């Protein structure tokens, strides 16, 4: 109570409209005939489908396994059969389809056997892997896989912050959850504290939720603290709440873990309690349905529930509704297709009416008033980032710390010229991301191309060397080859030699068949020649001797 708060700069006070949906207790959705479970509900790689069309599944059965490090599992929300594994409409601003598992409920709602986890004695890594396989992801909006956040890693975590600020207008799902299930949230926080090995646990709740504050204060043990923070949008932003409670500023491009602080949403703590104490995967979440509907309120909704069915459970949209927003009015996006299902990231379905959600007035030129910079809770200069984003000068936009923008919408909210600043920042961010992706791909292609050229060159050299070696071997090491070869060669050589000798032996003479007189003459000549040769030889033999004996 006596904790000193550190107010962040900026922020706005939009109308809360919390009372529209926070009066009634959380209602359970009836079992539906069909569920559509997207395999990409979290940040990171989509889950790998484990089932095929026609297979029977039970409630809580894993239908998608975590693929890669930043990923988590998906589970069947009820028992039934898999109708299809195919791309379907998902709640995404693009309206694009994504891979989903469509499950036809059999009405039995039969569950797989689940085992509570012995979290105090389980090895930390084993506990995290179980949490990953139970599909836990942050319910605060970023849907980051929880098992990664529960790994303290190299950085020692000293403080755990449970985020129950719920600063976005209209949304009351965390409010109702804290009022009704405070004890379970505290048990979840205990598990988080155990996994992270941190001493201090703080609950940050905006002071426009006195019932939730009271309920949690009654539930927490003495070593946890429930802090009431002033109502100011966006105090529920992770970095803003961290600063508010501890006075520590998250560095540019960093995370709160760099400061030794980990932040979880209270809804995640509740899901962690269910996962660990009941062994139940993340099968449902509380979703606020509010705005221009007959019976606004909060619904315990199974993941995969088509939004049209959720809307029907709240009595349907009232006449004159002009579309729906997923999330709140500050950070949410327009729903393009009502068949899209509830995912782990959907915290609110807000039905618009023309009175409270008039069409955005036409934008006027920026008048350099600086209102956006004063409202920015991240201490940025939105007008600078806007000019450069609009001019597609992304490098300059980035140099104004575009990526520290949390897209809270305060700048667009206060802009007297009604410029949709956040739309420009989102545009610039996704363009920069694409460039970085292209750059990575180009670098990979360059490396592979250079390697191929190097490989071809090497192969050419190797081939030339091989030929040179072979020629040398043929020349030099013929007989050094194996004895069999040598023997054969010797035989061949011998045969050749014999043939040569034989040839010499039968040197043909043109003196065959000559008359007797001619033969006699030849014989005489031969005899004379022989005589002459012997004479010459004896001369040649004696001469050198006399020459040598000469003094």
């Amino acid at each position, binding site marked *: 109570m006596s904790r000193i708060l550190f107010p962040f700069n900026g922020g706005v006070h939009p109308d809360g409209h919390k009372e529209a949906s926070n009066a009634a207790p959380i209602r359970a959705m009836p079992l539906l005939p069909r569920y559509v479970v997207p395999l*990409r509900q979290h940040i990171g790689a989509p889950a790998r489908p484990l089932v095929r069309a026609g297979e029977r599944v039970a409630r809580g059965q894993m239908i998608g396994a975590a693929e890669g490090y930043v990923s988590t599992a998906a589970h069947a929300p009820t028992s039934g059969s898999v109708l299809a594994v195919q791309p379907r409409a998902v709640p995404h601003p*693009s309206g694009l389809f994504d891979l989903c598992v469509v499950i036809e409920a059999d009405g039995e709602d039969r569950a797989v056997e689940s085992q509570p986890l012995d979290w105090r004695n389980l090895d930390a890594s084993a506990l995290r892997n179980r949490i990953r396989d139970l599909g836990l992801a942050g319910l605060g909006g970023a849907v980051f896989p929880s098992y990664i956040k529960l790994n303290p890693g190299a950085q020692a975590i000293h403080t755990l912050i449970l985020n129950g600020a719920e600063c976005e207008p209209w949304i009351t799902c965390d409010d109702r959850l804290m009022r009704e299930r405070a004890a379970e949230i505290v048990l979840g926080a205990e598990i988080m504290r155990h996994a992270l090995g941190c001493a201090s646990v703080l609950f940050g709740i905006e002071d426009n939720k006195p019932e939730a504050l009271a309920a949690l204060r009654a539930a927490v043990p003495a070593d946890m603290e429930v802090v009431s923070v002033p109502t100011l949008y966006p105090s529920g932003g992770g970095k803003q709440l961290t600063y508010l409670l501890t006075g520590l500023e998250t560095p540019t491009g960093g995370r709160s873990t760099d400061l030794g602080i980990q932040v979880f949403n209270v809804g995640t703590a509740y899901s962690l309690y269910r996962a660990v104490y009941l062994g139940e995967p993340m099968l449902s979440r509380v979703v606020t349905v509010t705005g221009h509907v007959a019976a606004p309120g909060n619904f315990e909704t199974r993941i995969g529930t088509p939004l049209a069915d959720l809307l029907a459970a709240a009595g349907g949209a009232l006449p004159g509704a002009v579309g729906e927003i997923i999330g709140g009015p500050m950070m949410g996006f327009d729903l393009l297709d009502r068949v899209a299902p509830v995912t782990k990231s959907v915290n609110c379905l807000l039905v618009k009416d023309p009175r409270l959600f008039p069409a955005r007035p036409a934008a006027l030129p920026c008048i350099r008033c600086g209102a956006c910079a004063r409202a920015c809770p991240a201490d940025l200069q939105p007008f600078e980032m806007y000019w450069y984003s609009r001019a597609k000068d992304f490098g300059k936009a980035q140099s104004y710390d575009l990526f520290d923008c949390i897209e809270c919408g305060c700048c667009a909210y206060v802009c007297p010229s009604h410029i*949709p600043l956040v739309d420009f920042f989102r545009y610039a961010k996704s363009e920069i991301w694409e460039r970085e992706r292209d750059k990575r791909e180009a670098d990979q*292609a360059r490396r592979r191309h250079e390697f191929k050229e190097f*490989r071809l060159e090497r192969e050419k050299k190797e081939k030339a060397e091989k030929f040179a070696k072979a020629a040398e071997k043929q020349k030099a090491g013929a007989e050094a080859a194996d004895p069999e070869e040598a023997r054969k060669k010797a035989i061949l050589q011998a045969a050749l030699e014999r043939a040569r000798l034989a040839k010499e032996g039968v040197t043909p003479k043109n003196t065959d068949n000559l008359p007797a007189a001619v033969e006699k003459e030849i014989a005489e000549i031969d005899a004379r020649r022989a005589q002459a040769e012997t004479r010459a030889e004896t001369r040649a033999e004696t001469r050198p001797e006399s020459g040598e004996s000469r003094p």
Partner: protein
Amino acid sequence: MITAILVMAGIGLVLGGVLGWASIRYRVEDDPLVEKIDAILPQTQCGQCGFPGCKPYAEAIAKGEADINQCPPGGNEGVKRLAELLGVEPKPLGAGMEPKPKAVAVIDENTCIGCTLCIQACPVDAIVGAAKQMHSIIAEQCTGCELCLPPCPVDCISMRVIREDVATWKWRYPVHMMKRAA
């Protein structure tokens, strides 16, 4: 007066010597401009510019032998960045060089006869296979250069355009009405 001239001449000689020594000692071997140009090029190695790869094209641009608008995969955006780097006016892509949407090659594995001709043609070794064995393309490493299409004797390779999905989707440039100022 003489002293001043001598001192100035001496300083000049010493500094000139230092600069001369530094220019030899710290000589940059590669042409840094080629590297900079090559960094902008998309590395598809497709040869549509008329050079056998991105690096040769970069070298030709650096020497002034090639124009900056010969790279269709880089698109007008690439031409713009080259123009910025080289300090020249950007120009539209050359005639008949419309940028195509990003695509990857796909082998119809039932038709492939395993001739290895595409493997030899692939500039980034993105095709796996052996003689008389089925070939397959590693989609993540394919640059979409289309160089494997002509050598295939059975025409079993086709290009498949990469469609954007939820992960690669981009926020569009905000279209917002500007009120007419008076």
